[in-house]
């Protein structure tokens, strides 16, 4: 039996979930709320939507909010935020459990192709035809909502295209939202 099998097998046998093992980084995020009533509503809403959530006590370094927090798969951050917003539930903070000080990217790379402008946020790029502000390409990313978003946004102008956050689910979708907002800020 190889080392990998032994290590993973040990976790399987002990019932410890892979995301809790000390290898790698945590794939969970944390929603911090002001009131317990919001936690209860959010938990029901997210469970109904099929999202794997768990109510936990927040770690001691989180100094705001009530005594309960919701853990969720961090990659689904865009869908979680959108669902909560639609129900007018506003978390105080959305944090990656791996490192509570991490923040979403805020640096943009802009490349001018003459008639076209490309903006990159993290791993996502959006390109617009400067003449009519039509979205001509979306590239980068790796989560399954990226090809889905590309099909729905490409060919539409910045004025008429739906916001990526209204259709996307993952952090790649979120990065595309940031690139899209930066593109709008520059072009409109």
């Amino acid at each position, binding site marked *: 039996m190889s080392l990998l099998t032994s290590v*993973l097998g040990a976790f399987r046998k002990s019932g410890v979930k*892979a*995301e809790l093992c000390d290898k790698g980084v945590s*794939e969970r995020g944390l929603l911090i709320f002001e009131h317990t009533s919001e936690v209860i509503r959010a938990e029901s809403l997210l469970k109904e939507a099929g999202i794997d959530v768990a109510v936990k006590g927040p770690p001691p370094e989180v100094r705001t909010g009530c005594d309960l927090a919701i853990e969720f798969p961090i990659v689904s951050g865009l869908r979680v935020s959108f669902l909560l917003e639609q129900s007018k539930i506003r978390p105080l903070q959305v944090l990656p459990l791996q490192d509570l000080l991490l923040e979403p*990217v805020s640096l943009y790379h802009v490349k001018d192709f003459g008639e076209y402008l490309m903006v990159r946020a993290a791993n996502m790029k959006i390109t617009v035809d400067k003449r009519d502000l039509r979205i001509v390409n979306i590239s980068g990313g790796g989560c*399954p909502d990226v090809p*889905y978003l590309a099909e729905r946004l490409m060919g539409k102008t910045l004025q008429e295209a739906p916001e990526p956050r209204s259709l*996307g*689910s993952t952090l790649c979708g979120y*990065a595309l939202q940031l690139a899209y907002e930066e593109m709008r800020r520059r072009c409109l």
Partner: protein
Amino acid sequence: MPLMIVGTVPYEGFPLIHEECNLRDGRLNLGHESVSVVRGTSALLAAACLASEVLGLARPWALLAGDIGRGDGSRRVYAHLVEHLPDSPERVIVFHYLQPEVDWHNRILMKIDDLERRPLLVADAGYMYVAKMSGFATSYDLFTPDVGEMAFLADESVPHPFYTRGFLLQEEEKVPELIQRAYVHDNAARYLLVKGRRDLVASADGIIAEISEPCVENMEPIGGTGDTLTGIVAALLHSGKSVPESAASGATVNRVLGRLTNPTPASSIADLLSCLPEAVRTVLFAD
């Protein structure tokens, strides 16, 4: 010993498919199903089909399901893999647009580790993210990040490129440092093919190859050009070439593809594919 490409297509309700794949009239045919070639796993598959044909190889197999980012299709693919990997005859497995879920990733890796003959493992897109997130990046033979994703691999703290810390999101000139940092923290595969203005093939020992010609700047904004590159590399691996040789030749083929099609930033990946066989022949059969 086939090549298998594992991923998703962006159609809700698209069934789980595990079929040999061919490309005809611009559409991918997978058993009773057919999909158009758009960016993502379908572009990777299309490139692998075309390159395999030129190289005289068997058609690639596809393991796909529909997923629009909710993870449901990815989980169907994962469950199928866990069940069927013990019978798997694959020589090369490419993991692509899949919802990153560490628990599923680790279950699959355990099954692969149990195989008598271990296939070559390539991870791109979402599966590369989860491979890094799991802490088992070194179990893979090749990752194919772009510059933004390379910064993510170099950042030992983050679960997704969305949180990559600013000091790592530098310009492309810093990529060699990022590669080194990723290897220091065991967050890279045995080999890396970093896609950028200059493509770099690297291992823990440093940069092995640098491919910068021909340079077609307009390829960068076109969604799917990274997917075609991974598809070409997959076919080259399947042909028996080594990982660094496949990565370097694949990068050159993809660049020649750009030169042959002379795209604009508004071109689509489907516009480029018709020239892919010629690009493969130009690079590999030049003599």
